[in-house]
């Protein structure tokens, strides 16, 4: 195969159809950026849920020795096996509870340590005499509610039980945050969906125009026995170039959003939430589910190009 010929055709094709290619690139850039932001918001929701629990959950911390809450329920110090059994029974008997899980001191400590490291506030966990230790960290129950509206019964039942230190009920605050995230996520995905559809139509038009401009060459290529792949290659490469430029621009914009938006602005101002990091950014680029923009961009240009060139350059 003469690559020189293919690249000459590619250059000619890009030049001849420049305005259409620019339109495809701009649309891809905006739509992939939106899709990427959607993925980052989804990752953010996951990170926040992992760390704080979701709006259907309440956290029931059990008493430790020297419990910092100074709750009368903790007068006898560390929660006893009997107290724990009663708490467990109360949770199991409640008709407001869908399920519950026990989190040991070690698990809770590990989770908190990971979150602190994410937010760069792990100093309290480290050093020769750390403030936060496994012994001081409370064991807890994660209680999942049937609906976020109904929790009064279980909360009031647990509040008075010996061995229960604090009940963390963040339904309202978290519900709002997750609500905003859901709106942002679906908003950006719907926007991205419309724009990606527009990109798809533009790719289709671009190929149709390119095939029309090259119809004489294509007819001769077919007659002299050029393979379908050889005839389609310049089209595919044109689509690939548009996709690469679109993806690169979107990746750049997302990197700027991650650096200046998340790391420099949001992380500083909203410290109680853990924030997406560069690992999540990488997922937005090359993740498989949902597909990252490095997969989405080429797929959205190459698949229609392949289908259409099969139609236009069929031997």
């Amino acid at each position, binding site marked *: *195969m*003469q690559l*020189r*010929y293919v690249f000459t055709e590619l250059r000619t094709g890009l030049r001849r159809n420049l305005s259409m290619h620019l339109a495809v690139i701009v649309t891809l850039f905006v739509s992939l950026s939106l899709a990427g932001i959607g993925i980052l918001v989804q990752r953010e929701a996951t990170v926040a849920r992992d760390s704080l629990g979701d709006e259907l959950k309440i956290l029931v911390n059990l008493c430790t020795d020297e419990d910092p809450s100074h709750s009368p329920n903790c007068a006898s110090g560390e929660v006893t096996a009997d107290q724990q059994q009663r708490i467990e029974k109360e949770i199991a008997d409640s008709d407001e509870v869908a399920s519950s899980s026990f989190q040991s001191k070690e698990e809770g400590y590990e989770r908190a340590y990971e979150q602190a490291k994410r937010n760069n506030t792990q100093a309290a966990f480290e050093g020769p005499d750390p403030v936060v230790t496994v012994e001081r960290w409370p064991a807890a129950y994660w209680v999942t509610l049937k609906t976020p509206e109904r929790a009064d019964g279980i909360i009031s039942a647990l509040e008075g039980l010996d061995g229960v230190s604090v009940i963390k009920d963040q339904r309202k605050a978290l519900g709002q945050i997750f609500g905003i995230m859901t709106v942002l996520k679906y908003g950006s995905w719907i926007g991205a969906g419309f724009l990606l559809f527009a990109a798809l139509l533009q790719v289709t038009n671009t190929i149709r125009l390119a095939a029309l401009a090259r119809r*004489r*060459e294509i*007819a*001769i*290529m*077919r*007659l*002299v*026995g*050029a*393979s*379908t792949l*050889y*005839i389609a290659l310049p089209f595919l490469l044109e689509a690939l170039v548009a996709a690469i430029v679109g993806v690169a621009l979107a990746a750049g914009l997302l990197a700027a959003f991650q650096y200046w938006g998340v790391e420099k602005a949001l992380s500083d101002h909203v410290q109680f939430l853990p924030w997406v990091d560069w690992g999540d950014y990488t997922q937005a680029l090359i993740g498989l589910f949902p597909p990252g923009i490095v997969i989405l961009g080429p797929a959205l240009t190459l698949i229609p190009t392949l289908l259409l060139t099969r139609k236009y350059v*069929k*031997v």
Partner: protein
Amino acid sequence: MIRFEKVTKRYPGPGRPALDQVTLDIDKGEFVYLVGTSGSGKSTALRLVLRELRPTTGHVHVAGKEINRMAGWKVPRLRRQIGTVFQDFRLLPNKTVTENVAFAQQVIGKSRREIGKVVPETLELVGLKDKGDRMPDELSGGEQQRVAIARAFVNRPMILIADEPTGNLDPATSAGIMNLLGDINQTGTTVVMATHDHGIVDQFTKRVIELDHGKVVRDEASGSYGFQH
């Protein structure tokens, strides 16, 4: 080299078939005129040979292969064995004579060295050795048709199909083109030429297959055009 066995080709819609139970045999190295009125089925027959169409019934064999059920990916390989020339030349206006001829080799992946050797040889064969740098619109009709023939012959096909190659040319130029096709035929290439040009058929006597309403009505080893238009 080309064999039609009871070939019928029916296009969608009502009406008679374009080809109706056509059986014919063209041997290697033959020169055959395909004559007949417009709509007699000449172009359909040529397109069947090129596997641009498939017969509705019957079998088409080209270069020893039955091409009816040939897989799509094998068709380009078949077409490399067939050169095609048209009445309207179909040259690429933005390429020089040499580039037009080289194009047929580039797109099937021939090396630059081979192209550099074969293209000038072919241009010499068609009498355009000194016009390789010209653009098509700087050439006469006869010269443009020679370029088209050079492009069709540059890959040294086993079969050359010419669809009304002299249709746009004056008699003297047409005679030159016929001599060139005769020279190509002398190299062993089978030539099948569809034509309306009775002067050419009568002057350059060859085998004549006449089609009428999709049927072979005459097949003479050394025939004349046979009817006037």
